[in-house]
């Protein structure tokens, strides 16, 4: 199996195999005092043993496990640009309570964050600063463009603003002016689904930026 960044992973040493589980059972792991009450005094074999093992052992791939872990603990950057930031604060408040999903750790440093929420309008003077923040975040990293201004310049479609897509990759656009906290929450959950279901559908594929990894394969 090859991961998206090119590392080859040998799962043979990681996966829990049914055969080894079988050996555990045969070897008496479930006999004596350790044996569950409903199995006391019984040796199970054959199809029954298969079923027993299937019920108790979960197999997955490392990629899926990692994606599951990542998608349930985004560390958003504590970063607000304009009025959308007020709604962003509210997602951390008691009503929406972003902590229910594990995203409550708003980090003050881009080095510790893996999600940037662009909450507000981006002026062309601010764009290089945001780009620098984004570049400072460690991979894997995601970006949410919150509100009309950040996605399409909204009512400020004039000389002063630039949409976020023009200078950095965006994973999820949340429409609204400003979006309510539940809309932002919906966007974050969309991002969770994106990360869980298809971790390879990252921005490099969508923006044709393969080869720009900080540590390219083989390096």
């Amino acid at each position: 199996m090859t991961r998206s960044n090119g590392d080859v992973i040998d799962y043979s040493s990681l996966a829990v195999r049914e055969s080894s589980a079988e050996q555990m059972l045969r070897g008496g792991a479930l006999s004596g005092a350790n044996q569950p009450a409903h199995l006391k005094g019984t040796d199970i074999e054959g199809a029954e043993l298969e079923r027993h093992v299937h019920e108790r052992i979960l197999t997955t791939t490392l990629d899926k496990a990692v994606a599951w872990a990542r998608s349930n603990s985004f560390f958003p950057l504590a970063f607000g640009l304009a009025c959308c930031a007020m709604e962003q604060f509210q997602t951390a408040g008691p009503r929406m309570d972003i902590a229910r999903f594990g995203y409550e750790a708003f980090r003050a440093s881009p080095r510790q964050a893996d999600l940037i929420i662009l909450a507000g309008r981006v002026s062309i003077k601010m764009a290089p600063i945001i780009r620098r923040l984004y570049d400072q975040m460690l991979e894997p990293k995601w970006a949410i463009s919150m509100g009309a201004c950040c996605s399409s310049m909204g009512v400020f479609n004039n000389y002063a603003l630039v949409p976020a897509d023009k200078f950095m990759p965006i994973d999820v656009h949340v429409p609204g002016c400003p979006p309510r906290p539940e809309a932002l929450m919906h966007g974050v959950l969309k991002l969770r689904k994106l990360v869980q279901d298809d971790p390879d559908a990252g921005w490099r594929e969508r923006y044709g930026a393969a080869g720009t990894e900080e540590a390219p394969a083989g390096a």
Partner: protein
Amino acid sequence: MPDATGLELIGKELGKAVLDKTFFRERATLDIDPTAVRAVLSQLREKGFAFLASVHGVDYYPHEPRLGVIYELLDMRRVDRITVRVRLPTDAPEIDSVTPDGDYGAGWPTANHQEREVYDMFGVVFRGHPDPRRILMPEDYEGHPQRRDFPVGGEPVLFTRDEAQWLEARE
């Protein structure tokens, strides 16, 4: 506000620096000679208008001279306001800065950032300003965006990733 008579009296005291006096909707405005702005503001300060509430620019396009710089003065003790307005042509929009102290008396430190903003947005150059940089737009920005002949800007925004699907779905 000084009433209409008060405005006449103030205008008379300021002499020939005053080009015009307007009293419209309880709002007293003095149109003055751009070269006399420092002297006029100093004189008004002595009369009690000691607080410079705002400095801002206007583009009066298509009227000439096009640009205007407006100083809003406030007398805090009598709660009295007066507006001082200068008009400047676009080909040489220069005026003395009122920020620094000088032989005409003390300056108005609050004008520092506001004059920078007028310069940034309208291109009015304030002579003698201690820090005549842009304040809002990037320093390498070209043009002065609040002028009426400046293009509004903006651009069509496409969500290019989904655009093809949307066009298909629409047909």
